[in-house]
């Protein structure tokens, strides 16, 4: 038994559960309706911060201290609940831990505006533990189990404000995810039959001798898994939950849903394609073609929808739809460079999108402004916030020397290198168009914010900078978005190492 791995998973889950239980205890004593006092809120923040930092430390320690694996128990004969740490887990766990802590601190201030803090932080902690378990998963069934639990435990964060709209959005999130998960499960059944093992093996473990004669149904099953796990990653046709869930969820929840939980879908797809099926099995088949087409379609469609959308958080949600499909496109070309680019974009997009959603949250927290046309002159009121936003936006567009440029460079390069026919040039072209659209939907907020023209009376705008508790996390994220672009080499090497191991 590896204590540190268990601690990394169960510490956040248990502390989150305790928080939720304290809520029922409070209800029993009849104080449910009271707003928590200042003292109470402070001790809550302290407890959550301690739990978060300790869990993150445990997770990082587990990830970076050598080879670790752990069999918890056997679900059925030959199907253990099995955790193992490899380089993919390391990358994802580090990303998730950093972002989760930073956004956690951001929410201490933000959630004053939403209320019901205990419930929010309870689920926030639980989901973190589940995500760590997801990253550590060593076989497909364990991954699926964590994936389901992640959906169930993250749903209450979406319906947090309790409006009818929020509840409908949460259900939509839940059912899209479930639909995706069952498509995934459908594939798992077949892979279990035709793979030597469901344990993740770089390069896959499909038994070609067993599978011969059943390739048709296997292709269907694998394609189903791509669509299914793609639901979390916002890939067409199961993307519609994103624009519904994000505007109603509290901003920190939107941030992690977009930045991190959408990446859980990517992680699942990486595991399926590169660690169970093996990329060679689908190379050059209709599955790869369909996957590339869907990814590119989603890239374009997401950007287009974002461009037309006027509700700020919904615009960012469509942007996520588009950007996560960059990652999927990078994976779908099945080349080393493409996969390197995809992994880089996983990291960069997570950081950038969390920064953007944090900005949106600050606008809501301070002014209650949710639509882009309300944001004229906002740069006069909170210049620091808007500068952070601008840096993050530039990074997402991919303007050198910011991080987005690096990942997109590799993505385009990967597509050109791979022998994928028409997609070799179509891919980069779509990425380019989408970058233009990205500029088109992100930068007007900056320009109108700093130069409102005569839409608002600039003289009447007073400086109302965001509180430090929100500005500092935002600045960290925006800073990272730029820094990764200036010093990308360690990350590129790490991603390249992962890619070269499986391709």
């Amino acid at each position, binding site marked *: 038994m590896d204590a540190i791995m268990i601690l990394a998973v169960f510490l956040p889950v248990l502390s989150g559960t305790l928080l939720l239980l304290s809520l029922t205890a409070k209800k029993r004593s009849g104080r449910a309706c009271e707003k928590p006092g200042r003292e109470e809120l402070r001790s809550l923040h302290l407890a959550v911060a301690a739990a978060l930092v300790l869990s993150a430390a445990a997770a990082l320690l587990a990830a970076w201290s050598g080879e670790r694996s752990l069999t918890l128990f056997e679900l059925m004969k030959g199907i253990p609940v099995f955790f193992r740490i490899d380089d993919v887990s390391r990358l994802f766990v580090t990303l998730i831990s950093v972002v989760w802590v930073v956004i956690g601190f951001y929410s201490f201030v933000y959630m004053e505006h939403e209320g019901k803090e205990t419930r929010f932080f309870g689920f926030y902690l639980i989901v973190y533990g589940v995500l760590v378990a997801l990253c550590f998963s060593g076989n497909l069934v364990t991954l699926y189990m964590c994936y*389901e639990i992640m959906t169930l435990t993250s749903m209450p964060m979406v*319906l947090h404000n309790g409006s*009818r709209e929020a509840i409908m959005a949460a259900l939509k999130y839940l059912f899209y995810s*479930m639909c995706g998960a069952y498509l995934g499960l459908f594939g798992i*059944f077949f892979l279990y039959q035709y793979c030597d093992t469901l344990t993740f093996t770089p390069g896959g473990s499909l038994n070609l001798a067993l599978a011969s004669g059943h390739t048709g149904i296997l292709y269907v099953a694998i394609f189903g898994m791509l669509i299914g796990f793609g639901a979390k990653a916002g890939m067409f046709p199961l993307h519609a939950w994103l624009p519904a869930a994000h505007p109603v969820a509290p901003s920190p929840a939107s941030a992690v849903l977009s930045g991190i939980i959408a990446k859980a879908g990517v992680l699942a797809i990486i595991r399926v394609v590169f660690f169970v099926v093996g990329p060679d099995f689908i190379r050059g088949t209709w599955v790869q073609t369909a996957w590339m087409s869907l990814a590119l379609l989603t890239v374009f469609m997401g950007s287009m929808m974002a461009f037309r959308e006027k509700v700020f958080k919904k615009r960012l949600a469509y942007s996520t739809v588009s950007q996560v499909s960059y990652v999927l496109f990078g994976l779908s070309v099945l080349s080393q460079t493409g996969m390197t680019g995809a992994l880089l974009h996983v990291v960069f997009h997570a950081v950038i999108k969390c920064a953007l959603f944090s900005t949106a949250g600050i606008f809501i927290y301070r002014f209650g402004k949710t639509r882009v046309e309300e944001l004229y002159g906002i740069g006069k009121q909170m210049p620091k916030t808007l500068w952070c936003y601008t840096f993050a936006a530039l990074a997402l567009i991919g303007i050198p020397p910011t991080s987005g440029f690096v990942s997109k460079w590799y993505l385009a390069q990967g597509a050109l290198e791979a022998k994928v026919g028409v997609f070799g040039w179509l891919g980069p072209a779509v990425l380019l168009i989408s970058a233009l659209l990205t500029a088109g939907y992100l930068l007007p907020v900056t320009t109108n914010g700093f130069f409102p023209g005569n839409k608002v009376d600039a003289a009447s705008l007073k400086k109302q900078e965001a509180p430090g508790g929100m500005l500092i996390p935002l600045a960290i994220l925006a800073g990272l978005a730029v820094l990764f672009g200036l010093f990308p080499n360690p990350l590129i090497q790490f991603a390249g190492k992962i890619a070269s191991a499986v391709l």
Partner: protein
Amino acid sequence: MNAAMLVLVVLLPILAGVLIPVLPFGSRRQMMVYIEGVVLLDSALTISLLIAQPQDAFELFRFASNLSISFRLDGLGTVFAGIVSVLWPLATLYAFEYMEHEGHEKIFFAFYTVTYGVTLGIALAEDVVTMYCFYELLTLVTLPLILHTLTREAVLASRTYLYYSLGGAAFAFVGMIFILSYGTTSNFVPGGVLDLAKIGDRTNLLLLIYVLCFMGFSVKAAMWPFSGWLPKAGVAPTPVTALLHAVAVVKAGAFTTMRITYYSFGAEFLRGTWAQAVVMIPVIFTIVYGCSRALKETHLKRRLAWSTVSNLSYILFGVVLMSPLGLVGALCHMIFHATMKICSFFCAGAVICKTGREYIHQLDGFGRRMPKVFAAFTVSGLALMGVPGLCGFVSKWNLVKAAVADGSTLAYLGIASLMISALLTAIYMLTISVRAFFPAKGFDDASIADVRDPGWKMLLPLAVFVAAMFLFGLHPEPILVRLQAVAALVG
């Protein structure tokens, strides 16, 4: 352990049940002690029988040369008798608290207890004649339970139930005659009893008879197009819907189809024929149909009843795969579905009994006032969906494993229907939980101030079932090994 005990465990509840209306009980409490005592005693005897596994048969009496009423315990019967004997005492305990406000308790418990014996009779029957007799008897003794409230709705429901069941039994009867005339024996033998020499070139006729017989028995398992009676029968008191319409009666339907498929006609005779396709199509359709009807339904118990329709066809799907793996999946789901569905029904019953609310839209915020009941309900919902770690996943896994191994197009279609059904299950179960735990903004807590968790007699069975769902989900291997041993014989 004597084989005569087999008869004893069947007759004890029947006789004790018949005596309930005539015995002079001093108080309700005395009656409760008597009934629970009888049921517990019978369960204890049954379980000790299941452990001892006597091999001999016991013949009660003989009508004619090869027509007899006789009992014998085998692997398949062990599974069904095990489910029934564990659940019955718990359900009886629950019924005591529930029936307090329903009235006519003596009559109710008389039939309720008799049903126990009859169900065991089906499980322990040695041959097709005995099974058929008890099967018919089951219809008759459960009829008054549906009729119990004597409302117009109940009368109509019981009439529907009667027509469906008797009609189905008629088809089953035809099957029985053919088994008697073309079989080497009327007993149940793993692998089937058909005498191929006698059949000669009449294979197609026999296959047709199998289809009729399967359809006849599947009426009780509520397969489409014979599923209409089950949701209607939801007018019965909840202990009946929970135990009989989620476990005893409907599982008796599934059990009898297993018997005729694997022990009379024989899986080998049927596998790959047109008859298999003909029975598989309605089964697959029912899996999706039941779920979609559940989704449309706004009445809590009827929604669960439609869910049962769908889940019973999971079991039938395992049966009609006609392979040992399929039988493992079917038996596995038979056990696990019993646990999950009785749990969700008991939760529904607790709500109805304690608050009088019957429709789903009235359940806003209930999770806050009845946290224990709705926690159990949510767990059973997650289990039905097949979240790994709970028992539903294990049975689904085994069913699909059998289907993938089968490799036919219809089997693949069946897997797809299982997945669609899982999604629909998620929708119809979780919307209730979300509504209960997260009422919409502006919800008036005072409107449900009267709602609270029920007493221990209702909560104890719930706790047992929740624990069982986790236990089966996390450590199913001991059960699976036994089921595999049963199924290995029939291949």
